[in-house]
């Protein structure tokens, strides 16, 4: 079987020849800039120019050469967006201490110059909005269209037998786009105390997301195997908002969007959600998600045995290979090997598992730990 067949087999809850691998390509399975440099050094690759993929998280596109060395079964499309008009909000600048950039949504990001590894949220378009009148001042960005020239890349990956993924989406999720416009505290408070301000926003967001997928499938239709919508429903301790709110207010939008995406093409849909989401997982499955990523096994009630036994037949786990909050950054290589093998044994049974780290590989991962994980995968991935 080729790599794509291997991935699709696992996504259909059957055991392929071996557990599929995603290191460096799919949603939240990528490398930060500083880690990638260590990986290039490990492989003795000297002249590769870094290609940035995501500015806030400082993620890179790993080259095909590196992905092949790792044995990655998945490829991520480098979509070629064509902007529709001037952005009302976008701007970049710096001062003595920080770099700033404001994106099309009016969300301001800042990265400290000293010890800065990431851009983080620093301001929002409607941070001071008091009421619906103020909310109406928000200038919506327009979904990009895409250059048909980008099809060639996905065609060549398809021909070479890779599974094609896209991680891009319009805005963030139905829970998590609001915070980028109003600030976390304002949006979260609005959800419970002024939901009438939230609903019109989410209605419009759904409409624009559908337009985004129209544009994506117009150009890349037939070449995409996996899509992804990020919407962080979880924290370290439990869900961010009540499971009831997730079920009644947020997932109906996701369901409509998922149904729409599936009407456009035969794809599997990922929910990227950090944190502890177990309490909401039955509803997440009901809303039409096929895959959960990154599978934060160190969060409450997210242990591999619990997840696989309760939900393994109904959702694919894409991630969850190794704990990136403690073992991978701070453990010994031996601890990394033990945990990697254990998680593979649990998640890999009966398919429904694509191996990756829990979320992107960051700067604080020692290269010897990453290699210990990777070697353990290679030694134990065959069914």
């Amino acid at each position, binding site marked *: 079987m080729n790599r794509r067949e291997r991935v699709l087999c696992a996504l259909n809850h059957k055991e392929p020849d071996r557990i599929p691998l995603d290191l460096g390509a799919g949603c939240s399975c990528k490398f930060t800039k500083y880690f990638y440099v260590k990986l290039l050094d490990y492989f003795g690759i000297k002249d590769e120019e870094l290609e940035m993929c995501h500015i806030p998280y400082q993620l890179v596109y790993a080259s095909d050469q590196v992905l092949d060395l790792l044995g990655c079964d998945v490829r991520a499309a480098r979509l070629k967006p064509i902007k529709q008009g001037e952005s009302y909000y976008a701007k970049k600048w710096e001062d003595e201490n920080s770099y700033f950039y404001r994106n099309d949504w009016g969300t301001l990001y800042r990265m400290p110059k000293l010890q800065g*590894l990431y851009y*983080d*949220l620093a301001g929002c378009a409607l941070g001071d909005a008091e009421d619906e009148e103020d909310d109406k001042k928000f200038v919506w960005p327009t979904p990009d269209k895409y250059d048909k020239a980008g099809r060639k890349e996905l065609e060549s990956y398809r021909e070479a037998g890779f599974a094609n993924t896209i991680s891009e989406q319009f805005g963030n999720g139905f829970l998590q786009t609001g915070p980028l416009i109003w600030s976390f505290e304002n949006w979260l*408070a609005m959800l419970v105390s002024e939901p009438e301000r939230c609903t019109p926003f989410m209605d419009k967001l759904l409409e624009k997301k559908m337009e985004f997928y129209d544009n994506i499938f117009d150009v890349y239709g037939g070449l995409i195997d996996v899509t992804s919508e990020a919407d962080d429903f979880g924290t*370290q*301790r439990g869900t961010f*908002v009540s499971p009831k*709110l997730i079920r009644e207010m947020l997932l109906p939008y996701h369901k409509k969007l998922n149904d729409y995406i599936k009407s456009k093409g035969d794809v599997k849909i990922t929910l990227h959600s950090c944190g502890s989401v177990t309490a909401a997982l039955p509803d997440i499955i009901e809303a039409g998600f096929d895959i959960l990523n990154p599978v934060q096994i160190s969060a409450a009630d997210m242990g591999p045995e619990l997840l696989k036994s309760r939900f393994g037949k109904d959702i694919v786990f894409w991630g969850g290979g190794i704990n990136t909050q403690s073992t991978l950054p701070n453990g010994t290589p031996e601890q990394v090997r033990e945990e990697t093998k254990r998680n593979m044994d649990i998640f890999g049974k009966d398919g429904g598992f694509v191996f990756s780290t829990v979320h992107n590989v960051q700067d604080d991962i020692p290269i010897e730990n990453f290699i210990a994980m990777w070697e353990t995968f290679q030694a134990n991935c065959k069914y």
Partner: protein
Amino acid sequence: MSKIQEISKAIEFGKKKIMKGLVEEALAEGCKPIDILNQGMIEAMSVVGEKFKANEIYVPEMLVAARAMKEGVELLKPHLAGDKSAVLGKFIVGTVEGDLHDIGKNLVAMMIESAGYVVIDLGVDVSTEKFIEAIKANPDCNLVGLSALLTTTMPSIKKSVAAIIEAGLKNQVKIIVGGAPITQEFADLIGADAFAADAASAAAIAKAFVA
């Protein structure tokens, strides 16, 4: 239901808009401001904190309750002037250098303020030097909190705690640490006095320190 109980319910359910009316009515009825604060407000936030800890309510409900509490306390302040019996101490808190995440830290600040501390929130990306400066500038500060969300900024917590100890300030302050990747083990390793997994636990620890 007494007026104080109504205030308590208004806080528990985040009814910020009716707080002004309720506080004015309570004062007009002759309720002592300190009783309104302790029984109507601090107690209510304590209940909110316990519900949050038990996953009966979530971040949005905590936030609206804290906003209602803040509104109530602001309304009471002129009537409480000079009454220091509610003050347990001063809490300096911040998210450490290199980290800009603050939802958890803000919840901790709200809960510890509700528990009776005066709070100085240094914000995010707070350097070691800034923590030290703030502690020295506030000799009545008896508790310091350090927060981080990222594994990559945990070293900043370690560095700041070490610097506070080296500056001889551990006689003055207790140190509490928290954030998603933080564990009791990490707190013990770096010499912090306590680790809190959530805002309610942080408030309970803060109260216990001065009991």
